[in-house]
């Protein structure tokens, strides 16, 4: 290499690593670039972003006259293919030369083989697919990219590609949400991250941003842009500086009460004027409280006062307010980096732009949980996921689980975390490529195992592909495939599931078992805004369901089976005791839900105070167990007609004639009140096709003349003076 005229000799250069030489690239003449690339790519070891970007940016300086030598480097068996850096540069060059098919191929290889480059490669793929009008593939690649990164810059690029994609071909199965962000500081930098992270959660946002520093005015003024926008979710974005606390607060009790009172007045105004859910930040502790220990120990100290305010926010919050644990996100990110002063002083941007991804993930997990879209089932691989090693080859004595080895203990720690998830109502299942007897052996015989066989509702150990098994698992538990989180250490299996079942959340475990818990916890898949007894008992309930299934297999007829279950239902109008569970069901039931009308707890409560509405909850139990509160009916009384505003049922009791029991209860109550007609409305949604024919199948007649009828809405009536009831196999236990 003739670098001598640049005062470098090859002899000296060889003492330096590739990363040290690459920054000299601007001193290289175009006709020597190829030699330079050959040298640094050949001598590079691990992939790193800086080298990648420098080599990428200089690709455009290659002489245009003779491209054939350059083209040779891009071929499949070239030396450049041998290093990570070389592979990425081949992809970049092909992309630049518009050899799109080849570029797509190499970008895919790059995404699979270089973890640090996964988000970048998938973003490149999304761009290429968009240019080629393969929109579905573009969305898929973009989603992989947005899930794989928390880098600020990459996420802003993802948001841009998303915007263009949506313009060209809007995505099909996605939840659209109107979100307002009201802040005391700059919010413009967080917007792209919100869009990107929402998208990775299958949500498409329309965002309203309050004018800079106008949080209060926007809330107070009923004519403000905020109210015109009619958001469904509002983020109240604030941080410790807004409290304007001095290091010692003389009357800290009063400060705590008044601060929370002020925020509460905003919640009340917003809830009075809008039907919305509020995500309210709590306050992060200052990274640099000058009072140090006293700040946290003295009742007047700033740190302590902030902690008390945070506690008071939780005490005062109402059902539609959700407190974002801003302080905990700061702690997890690292407080000193979080509270980076330069961007605050320059652009009133807080916190550090690199922390915005974590923050947005937290918003999305809360939004998902309000929408009832949190995951419910955790599906686990076995070998090298729950224990170290391969049971079929290493045998009971060879696998690593439990003490004394640190690796074995890392696996038991992971199992303990999973057991805790089970205790809070997450359903566990196994999906492993193994002989069933081998797979079960550690659960039965190994002392180090924390999880036992009966912790799992479904256990699939076979040699079918995992996508097929996951579909089976969802079917057996009777949940949607989108409620599954799949965890595996094997990149091949993860990729297969991602591409065949994009609605499944896939966690590819990190390389080191001690990092497994972080790997799973980070996605916040199971976030929930409230915990009901039914959540905690859910595992029991699903377990009984599987037993029922086996019982069904041994019964001769369905009728006989249903009678043998000895089902009983109790039911009554809504009251305070069931208000949370009722609201939870109204907001998360998708499949057996005739109208999918969502209501918050205050709206539900209002119904019970009016004579115009008839409400009823239903519980169902049988010889295998109590299913808990699983059905809801709301009827609007219009003279002698009862209009069924809401009729829904938890999917875990589908196929048990519960719907007939509920309908009969409505008819009985309507007759007693002197009504002559029940009106049933069906509103089509993306998920309730199951009940499209519900009313016609129960003898209701389509009301052709009703003006509410449309493509997605149909109105049916039933004259209840002369009717045949559908038989239910459930005994009425009354209240």
């Amino acid at each position, binding site marked *: 290499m003739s670098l001598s005229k640049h005062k470098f000799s090859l002899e000296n250069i060889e003492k330096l690593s590739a990363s040290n030489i690459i920054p000299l690239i601007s001193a290289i003449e175009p006709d020597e670039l190829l030699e330079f690339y050959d040298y640094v790519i050949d001598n590079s070891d691990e992939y790193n972003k800086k080298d990648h*970007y420098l080599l990428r940016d200089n690709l455009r300086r290659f002489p245009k006259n003779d491209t054939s030598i350059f083209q040779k480097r891009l071929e499949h068996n070239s030396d450049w293919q041998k290093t990570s850096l070389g592979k990425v540069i081949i992809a970049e060059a092909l992309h630049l030369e518009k050899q799109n098919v080849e570029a797509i191929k190499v970008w895919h290889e790059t995404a699979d083989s270089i973890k640090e480059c996964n988000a970048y490669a998938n973003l490149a793929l999304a761009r290429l697919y968009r240019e080629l009008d393969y929109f579905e593939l573009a969305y898929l690649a973009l989603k992989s990219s947005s899930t794989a990164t928390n880098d600020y*810059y990459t996420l*802003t*690029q993802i948001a841009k590609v998303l915007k*263009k994609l949506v313009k060209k071909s809007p995505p099909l199965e996605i939840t659209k949400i109107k979100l307002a962000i009201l802040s005391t500081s700059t919010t413009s*930098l967080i*917007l*792209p991250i919100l869009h990107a992270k929402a998208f990775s959660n299958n949500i498409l946002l329309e965002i309203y941003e309050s004018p800079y520093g106008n949080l209060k005015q926007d809330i107070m003024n009923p004519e403000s842009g905020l109210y015109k926008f009619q958001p469904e979710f509002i983020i109240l974005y604030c941080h410790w500086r807004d409290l304007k606390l001095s290091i010692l607060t003389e009357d800290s009790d009063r400060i705590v009460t008044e601060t929370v009172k002020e925020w509460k007045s905003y919640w009340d105004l917003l809830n009075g004027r809008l039907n919305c859910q509020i995500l309210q930040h709590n306050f992060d502790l200052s990274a640099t409280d000058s009072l140090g220990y006293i700040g946290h120990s003295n009742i007047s100290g700033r740190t302590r006062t902030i902690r008390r305010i945070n506690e008071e926010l939780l005490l005062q919050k109402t059902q539609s307010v959700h407190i974002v644990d801003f302080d905990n996100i700061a702690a997890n990110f690292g407080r000193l980096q979080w509270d980076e002063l330069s961007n605050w*002083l*320059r652009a009133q941007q807080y916190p550090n732009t690199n922390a915005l991804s974590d923050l947005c993930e937290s918003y999305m997990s809360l939004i998902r949980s309000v929408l009832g879209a949190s995951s419910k089932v955790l599906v686990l691989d076995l070998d090298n996921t729950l224990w170290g090693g391969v049971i079929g080859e290493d045998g009971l004595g060879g696998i690593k689980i439990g003490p004394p080895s640190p690796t074995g203990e890392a696996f038991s720690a992971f199992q303990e975390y999973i057991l805790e998830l089970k205790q809070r109502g997450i359903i566990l299942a196994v999906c492993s490529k193994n002989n069933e007897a081998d797979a079960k052996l550690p659960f039965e015989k190994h002392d180090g195992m924390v999880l036992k066989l009966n912790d799992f509702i479904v256990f699939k150990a076979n040699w079918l592909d995992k996508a097929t098994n996951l579909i089976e698992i969802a079917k057996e538990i009777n949940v949607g495939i989108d409620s599954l989180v799949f965890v595996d250490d094997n990149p091949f299996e993860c990729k297969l599931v991602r591409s065949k079942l994009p609605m499944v959340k896939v966690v590819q475990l990190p390389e080191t078992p001690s990092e497994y818990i972080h790997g799973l916890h980070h996605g916040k898949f199971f976030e929930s805004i409230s915990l009901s007894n039914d959540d905690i008992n859910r595992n029991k309930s699903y377990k009984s369901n599987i037993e029922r299934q086996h019982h069904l297999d041994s019964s001769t007829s369905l009728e006989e089976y249903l009678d043998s279950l000895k089902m009983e239902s109790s039911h009554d109008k809504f009251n305070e005791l069931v208000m949370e569970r009722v609201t939870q069901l109204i907001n998360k039931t998708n499949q057996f839900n005739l109208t999918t009308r969502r209501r918050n707890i205050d709206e539900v409560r209002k119904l019970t105070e009016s004579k115009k509405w008839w409400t009823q909850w239903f519980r169902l139990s049988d010889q295998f167990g109590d299913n808990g509160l699983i059905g809801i009916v709301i009827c609007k009384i219009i003279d002698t007609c009862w209009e069924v505003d809401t009729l829904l049922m938890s999917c875990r009791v589908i196929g048990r004639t519960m719907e007939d029991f509920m309908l009969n209860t409505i008819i009985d109550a309507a007759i007693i009140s002197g009504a002559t007609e029940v009106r049933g409305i069906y509103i089509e949604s993306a998920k309730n096709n199951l009940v499209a024919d519900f009313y016609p199948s129960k003898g209701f007649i389509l009301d052709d003349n009703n003006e509410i009828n449309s493509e997605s809405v149909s109105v049916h009536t039933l004259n209840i003076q002369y009717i045949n009831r559908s038989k239910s196999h459930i005994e009425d236990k009354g209240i």
Partner: protein
Amino acid sequence: MNDKLSTIQRIFRDVLDEPDLDVDESFSMQDHEDWDSVATVQIVLAIEESFGKRLSTDEVAEISSVADILRLF
């Protein structure tokens, strides 16, 4: 094209998401619909990282063209 300008061009291409964008000194906010105040901050953040120099709030507020950026860095 000098070194600084080529880095600036790369950053503009990234931020404005236009891989073939050519920028010169006269390129200004009026020349591109996506170059708004958010883009300015993003551009400054990226350039600061490349050049290892930080700008003050007032200086960022002055920026409305590539010439301004070249003058400040």
